[in-house]
C-alpha cells in the first residue's frame, strides 16, 4: 500500500546500509516528504557540525502522495544542514525521480558519512548498491544522467545528480534530475559533493496500493477539471512561471541593478518571447500544467543547444537584476546553470551584487581579471556563471555565497548584499509589500519566496474572499486587508501560507496546485480528502494544519539549535532606508517602516506560539508533541 515504503539509512564511510519501516504513528505526526525529513534531520544531526563535513546528514525523500493518482504528486525533497546559511537546508524539485523511488520501495534515504572516492547509489526494487562513479565525476548534469542510464542498460532509470558546481562545493550548488528540475536552494548539491556522492539512480516496479482507487481517480478527475479551467492554469500551460514578470516588472516589484531600481523601464524580456524558441511544453509526473518549455537556442556560440525552462527566477537572474534586456541571455544563462548544477537565483544575485560593487569601485578590473562587470553586459554575466561554477578567479570568492564572499572582499561590500540569513533574495523588491517582506524575513531557510509567500496578496482580492481563505481551518477573526501596501493582517497570511506550503511539501504535490499564484486551487480541505482516498489515513483540515505546524516548528527548533536569534528574522537596511524610486504610483516611493515591521514580527511570533525572541514556548511544544524531541525514535 501507499504507506508501506521504507527508510534506508546509508553510511557512505562504512558502506553499511540498513532499512526500516516507517511506523504509522510517525506518519500521523509528519506525513512524509519535507516534514518527516525535518524530523529525521533534527534527530540524526549533531548540533554545530560542518555542513561540508562527513557528519552532515543528507535526506532524500518522496512525499506521502507521490506516485498516487493525486495530480502533480511528483516532488522529491532534499534536506541537510545548509552550507550556505548554516541553518536548515531544504529544497524540493519536480520531475520523475520521487515516484520511481517509491516504486523501488523507499520513501526516505538518510545518508551519512563520506565515501572514499566518487560513488553513486543504485536503488531498484528494494535493493541498494553503492557503485563506483570515478568515470562520471567531472561530467555535467545532462551527461551524468545519460552515462548512468547507459551503464545500467535501462533508459527508464531516473537519476538525480550533481554537476561540476556540486563537485566544486559551490555553496549554492543544486541537485537536479532531468534537464531542469532542480532542488536549487540552500546548497544541497554541495553537501552531496562533500560526500563524494555524484548521483542516485532509481528504478522500481513495486506497485503502490491505493486505498480507494476508484474514488481516488474520480476525485482527481474533478480536481484536474477544476484546476485546468482556471485562468491561472491556462496561462501557466502557455507561458510557465515567466508570466509573473508581466505583473511584477510593470508594477515595480522587481530588483533591478541589484537593488538600485525596482523596475526595468522598457523591459523587453516578457514571457511571450519564448514562442520564438519553443519546441512545446513538458510536464512532471502526473501533472496537467506542463509549465516548462522545451526550447532551442537560435544564435551565437550556443546555437542549436537544447534546453528546458526558463523559470521566472532565471528572468530575474540574467535579466532584471543584472539589467540585461536580451531574452537570449536568459535562455543561455538558464542552460548554463542547469548544465553546471547551480542555483539560478543565488548565482544571479551574486553576479548582480558583484556588478554593484564594480560600479562603486569596490571591485576593480584587477579583481575581475579584466572582465567589465557593467550593467547589461550579457557576455560578462554568462562568463561569471562559468567562473563561479568552476571556481575561477573572482568566481571562487562568489562561490562561497553572500556572507563569506563579503567577508573576503571586505570594505563595505556587505552593505550592498540583499539577503536574509545568508541566502539571497529572489529578484523581487518587497518594499511595497509588507506581507512579502515579512515572509522573506522569517523564512526558515533564509530569504524565501517558496515557503511562506502570500503571492495572492498582490491581487487586491476582496476581503470577503480573503476571509474565506485565511479565516480557516484554524479560526482567525483578526484583521485582513486587500491592500498589499498595508501592514494589517499580513502576519496571518504569512503564517497560513507557511502551513499550506509545509503541508503540501509533506505530500509531494507541487505548490502550483495550491493557493500560491491563484486563490482557486487546493487548500487543507482538498488535501484531507486526497490523503484519505489514497492512503486511508483520516485527518480533518485542522489536523493537517497541526501536522504542518509541527513540521514547521521542528525547522525552527533546528535553526535555534544552530544559533538562530530574533535578529536573524530581519531585512537588510536598504529595505528601510532607500525608498523605491520608480514603478506604478502604488509601488513608488515606498520603503518598509521599521517600527511597523517589528510589530508584524511580534504578531507573527504570537500566532505561532513563540515568545518575543522567536523561541517556541513550552506549551506550544507540548501541544505539538515536540517537548520530547529529539527523541531518536527513528
Amino acid at each position, binding site marked *: 500500500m501507499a504507506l508501506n515504503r521504507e527508510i534506508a539509512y546509508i553510511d557512505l564511510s562504512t558502506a553499511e546500509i540498513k532499512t526500516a519501516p516507517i511506523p504509522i504513528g510517525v506518519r500521523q505526526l509528519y506525513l512524509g516528504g519535507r516534514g518527516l525529513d525535518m524530523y529525521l534531520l533534527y534527530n540524526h544531526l549533531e548540533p554545530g557540525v560542518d555542513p561540508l563535513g562527513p557528519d552532515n546528514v543528507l535526506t532524500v525523500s518522496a512525499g506521502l502522495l507521490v506516485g498516487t493518482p493525486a495530480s502533480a504528486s511528483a516532488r522529491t525533497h532534499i534536506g541537510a544542514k545548509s552550507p550556505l546559511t548554516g541553518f536548515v537546508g531544504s529544497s524540493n524539485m519536480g520531475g520523475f525521480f520521487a515516484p520511481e523511488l517509491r516504486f523501488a520501495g523507499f520513501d526516505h534515504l538518510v545518508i551519512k558519512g563520506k565515501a572514499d572516492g566518487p560513488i553513486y547509489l543504485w536503488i531498484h526494487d528494494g535493493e541498494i548498491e553503492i557503485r563506483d562513479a570515478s568515470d562520471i565525476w567531472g561530467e555535467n548534469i545532462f551527461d551524468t544522467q545519460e552515462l548512468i542510464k547507459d551503464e545500467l542498460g535501462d533508459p527508464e532509470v531516473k537519476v538525480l545528480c550533481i554537476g561540476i558546481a556540486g563537485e566544486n562545493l559551490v555553496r549554492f550548488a543544486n541537485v537536479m534530475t532531468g534537464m531542469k528540475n532542480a532542488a536549487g536552494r540552500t546548497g544541497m548539491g554541495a553537501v552531496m559533493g562533500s560526500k563524494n556522492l555524484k548521483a542516485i539512480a532509481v528504478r522500481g516496479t513495486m506497485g503502490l496500493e491505493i486505498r480507494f482507487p476508484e474514488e481516488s481517480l474520480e476525485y482527481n478527475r474533478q480536481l484536474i477539471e*477544476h484546476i485546468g*479551467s*482556471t*485562468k491561472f492554469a*491556462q*496561462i501557466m500551460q*502557455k*507561458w510557465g512561471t515567466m*508570466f509573473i514578470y*508581466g*505583473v511584477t*516588472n*510593470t*508594477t515595480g516589484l522587481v530588483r533591478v541593478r541589484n537593488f538600485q531600481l525596482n523596475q526595468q*523601464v*522598457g*523591459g*523587453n524580456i*516578457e514571457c*511571450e518571447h519564448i514562442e520564438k524558441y519553443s519546441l512545446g511544453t513538458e510536464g512532471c509526473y502526473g501533472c496537467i500544467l506542463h509549465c516548462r518549455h522545451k526550447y532551442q537556442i537560435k544564435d551565437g556560440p550556443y546555437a542549436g543547444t537544447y534546453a528546458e525552462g526558463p523559470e521566472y527566477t532565471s528572468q530575474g537572474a540574467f535579466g532584471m537584476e543584472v539589467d540585461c534586456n536580451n531574452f537570449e541571455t536568459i535562455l543561455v544563462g538558464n542552460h548554463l546553470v542547469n548544465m553546471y548544477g547551480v542555483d539560478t537565483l543565488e548565482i544571479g544575485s551574486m553576479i548582480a551584487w558583484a556588478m554593484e560593487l564594480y560600479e562603486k569601485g569596490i571591485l576593480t578590473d584587477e579583481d575581475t581579471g579584466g572582465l567589465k562587470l557593467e550593467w547589461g553586459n550579457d557576455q560578462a554575466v554568462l562568463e561569471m556563471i562559468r567562473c563561479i561554477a568552476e571556481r575561477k578567479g573572482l568566481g571562487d570568492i562568489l562561490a562561497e555565497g553572500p556572507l563569506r564572499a563579503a567577508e573576503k572582499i571586505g570594505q563595505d561590500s556587505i552593505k550592498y548584499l540583499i539577503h536574509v540569513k545568508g541566502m539571497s533574495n529572489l529578484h523581487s523588491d518587497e518594499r511595497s509589500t509588507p506581507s512579502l517582506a515579512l515572509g522573506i524575513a522569517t523564512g526558515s531557510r533564509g530569504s524565501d519566496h517558496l515557503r511562506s509567500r502570500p503571492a495572492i496578496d498582490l491581487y*487586491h482580492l476582496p476581503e470577503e*474572499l480573503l476571509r*474565506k*481563505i485565511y479565516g480557516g481551518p484554524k479560526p482567525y477573526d483578526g484583521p485582513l486587508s486587500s491592500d498589499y501596501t498595508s501592514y494589517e493582517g499580513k502576519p496571518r497570511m504569512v503564517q497560513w501560507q507557511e502551513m499550506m506550503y509545509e503541508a503540501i511539501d509533506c505530500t509531494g504535490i507541487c505548490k502550483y496546485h495550491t493557493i500560491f499564484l491563484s*486563490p*482557486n*486551487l*487546493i*487548500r487543507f*480541505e*482538498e488535501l484531507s480528502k486526497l490523503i484519505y482516498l489514497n492512503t486511508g489515513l483520516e485527518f480533518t483540515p485542522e489536523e493537517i494544519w497541526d501536522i504542518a505546524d509541527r513540521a514547521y516548528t521542528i525547522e525552527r527548533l533546528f535553526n535555534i539549535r544552530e544559533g538562530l536569534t530574533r535578529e536573524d528574522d530581519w531585512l537588510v537596511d536598504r529595505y528601510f532606508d532607500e525608498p523605491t524610486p520608480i514603478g*506604478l*504610483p*502604488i509601488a513608488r516611493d515606498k520603503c518598509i517602516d521599521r517600527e511597523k515591521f517589528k510589530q508584524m514580527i511580534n504578531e507573527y511570533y504570537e500566532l505561532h506560539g513563540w515568545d518575543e525572541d522567536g523561541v517556541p514556548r513550552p506549551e506550544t511544544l507540548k501541544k505539538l508533541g515536540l517537548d520530547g524531541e529529539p527523541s531518536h525514535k527513528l
Partner: protein
Amino acid sequence: MTTGTSKRKGKRIGEVRCQNCFVRFWPPQGVEKVPCPECGWEWYISWSGKLAKIRKPVWESWERHLAEAKKETED
C-alpha cells in the same frame, strides 16, 4: 472548489485586469494594445486563442501617464 469559483469556469479567460487601477475589462478579441477604460493607462495584450493576458505597458506612453497621475495627486 472551496472558493466557489468553479461555478464561473472559463468566464475570465478573455478578461484582463488593469495593473494600475485593478479594474477588470474585456479587450476586443485579438487587439494588440488597449487603454484601460477606467484610468486610461495603455497595455499591450497577448492572446492564445481566447485567452487574454497583459503583456507589458505601452512604454512610450509611460511617462505621460506617470505625469498625469502625479498631477492628480497634487490637485
